[in-house]
């Protein structure tokens, strides 16, 4: 009599467990592979829409050196992305100036000093901050930061590189803090104990042992923050002033690459030069964030092999 488990019917019998195992395997494989498929699909789509144009029709010299972005001017539109590139770079740069000290400091406090309840509460708060939608940050930039900056610096327009940089810095800080804290946590406790047992103070332990050991992870955290800043659209669009301009001071208005795509793509004719040049901006953004993420990844891996 065959038992319900069916394990008597020979080695080639496929029981229920075997099928579940197979199904789970296929589902998990599908889930894993889909991430790669989607990335490649997105890249193919953007490349197909913009790459041919960018390489053949687009005047790359003008694109990278001219601050004139006049995509709709007739008869001769000008596609100079320099002002947009500078806009994105200045906002991201300022954001990093704000967020790197904040987030590394916060990570050190949470990872090395805070204990018990304080630590748990802080971690939850930081993760909560990371979950605030970017449009809300843009709103804060527009409604809170802007009047504040007008007051403090006595200027007539409050949306600017400074505003967008501060907002973006605050936005990027939580994720950088989380990753930096992970990097600190990955430093074996034996190192701290050894250094403390030799008479190092907490600060000496952190500066001479923990930070050097966590260096790669911290660099990765900063790079991911940069990537986040580079790709951020809505908050920057709202807080930067969105006017094409080569900034000469932090209080100038700028326009970011991302914001340009968001604002203009809906109004272009599909397949037109303007449409395609926006996709070429997409390619540029994609390449930059891709390189940044790759670097971050290499730093994280570097940490593993150095052990």
């Amino acid at each position: 009599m065959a038992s319900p488990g069916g394990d008597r019917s020979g080695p080639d019998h496929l029981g229920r467990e075997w099928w579940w195992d197979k199904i789970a395997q296929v589902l998990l494989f599908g889930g894993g592979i889909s991430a790669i498929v989607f990335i490649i699909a997105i890249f193919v789509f953007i490349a197909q829409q913009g790459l041919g144009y960018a390489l053949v029709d687009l005047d790359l010299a003008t694109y990278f050196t001219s601050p004139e972005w006049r995509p709709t001017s007739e008869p001769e539109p000008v596609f100079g992305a320099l002002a947009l590139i500078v806009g994105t770079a200045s906002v991201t740069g300022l954001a990093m100036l704000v967020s790197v000290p904040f987030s590394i400091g916060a990570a050190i406090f949470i990872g090395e000093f805070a204990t018990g309840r304080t630590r748990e509460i802080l971690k939850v708060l930081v993760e909560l901050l990371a979950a605030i939608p970017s449009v809300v940050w843009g709103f804060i930039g527009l409604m809170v930061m802007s009047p504040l900056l007008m007051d403090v610096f006595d200027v007539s327009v409050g949306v600017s590189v400074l505003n967008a940089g501060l907002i973006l810095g605050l936005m990027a800080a939580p994720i950088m803090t989380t990753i930096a804290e992970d990097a600190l946590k990955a430093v074996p406790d034996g190192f701290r104990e050894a250094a403390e047992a030799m008479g190092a103070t907490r600060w000496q332990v952190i500066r001479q042992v923990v930070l050097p050991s966590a260096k790669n992870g911290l660099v990765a955290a900063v790079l991911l923050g940069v990537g986040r800043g580079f790709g951020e659209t809505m908050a920057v669009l709202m807080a930067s002033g969105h006017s094409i301009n080569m900034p000469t001071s932090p209080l100038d208005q700028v326009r970011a690459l991302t914001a340009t795509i968001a604002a203009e793509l809906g109004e272009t004719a599909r397949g037109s030069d303007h449409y395609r040049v926006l996709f070429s901006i997409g390619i540029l953004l994609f390449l930059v964030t891709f390189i940044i993420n790759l670097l971050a990844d290499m730093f994280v891996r570097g940490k593993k092999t150095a052990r």
Partner: protein
Amino acid sequence: MAEAREPAIRTRGLNLWYGDFQALFDVDLDIARGRVTSLIGPSGCGKSTFLRSVNRIIERLDYVRTSGSIEVMGQDVLASDVALTQLRREVGMVFQRPNPLPISVRRNVLFAHRLHNPHGQSRAEEDELVERVLREVLLWDQVKDRLDSLATGLSLEEQQKLCIARLLPVKPSVLLMDEPCSALDPEATSAVEELIWELRGDYSILIVTHNMAQARRASDECIFMLLGKVVEHAPTGDMFVTPTHSETADYIEGRYG
């Protein structure tokens, strides 16, 4: 045992709690100067706890409370005005797993030295110091060509010797060793034991061990602890030949532990 010289470590009525759990009960111990004292007992008997309370590294756990007194070379170390950095300069510690810092061999040796001499010394003075202490731990010949490579790449025996070497530049008077050979193979164990034996005299050494044979061959005095209390403290020879307590006899004969 002569009481003429002040002991290296003297504790009176030392109690220690991990939260609500009491790990040490009224420990009164005098650890002799310039000798090797081994601390034996079954797992969880409080030997490591005792060791780690002497340099107060145990306070890294914020739920630890202590009462009673600990004196190192006549100084009360539990007093509120004790500088931990100075205490840990006086009392070096070697851990169970070799834990060199992930920096070069040279910088490991100089780590504590540089902490306590922040104004720095010339390269030549430092080089001389590195060579001297590495020779003292019988490691110089093995690592002299690898001073600038990562200390974490050395063999375990070399790492453990390095962990001892890096304590010496600041001239501690007491060395605490928490099962320093348990991660090592037999050959490395005997090399490190030999080193510990060499160092006695200059340093007072308190060593926790699970290894009866090691306690027997590499210590002058022996302390047996059980459930947080000191059961017996005697010269090693006497303890292993004629233990006065039946618990001691049972333990060293391997009836439990």
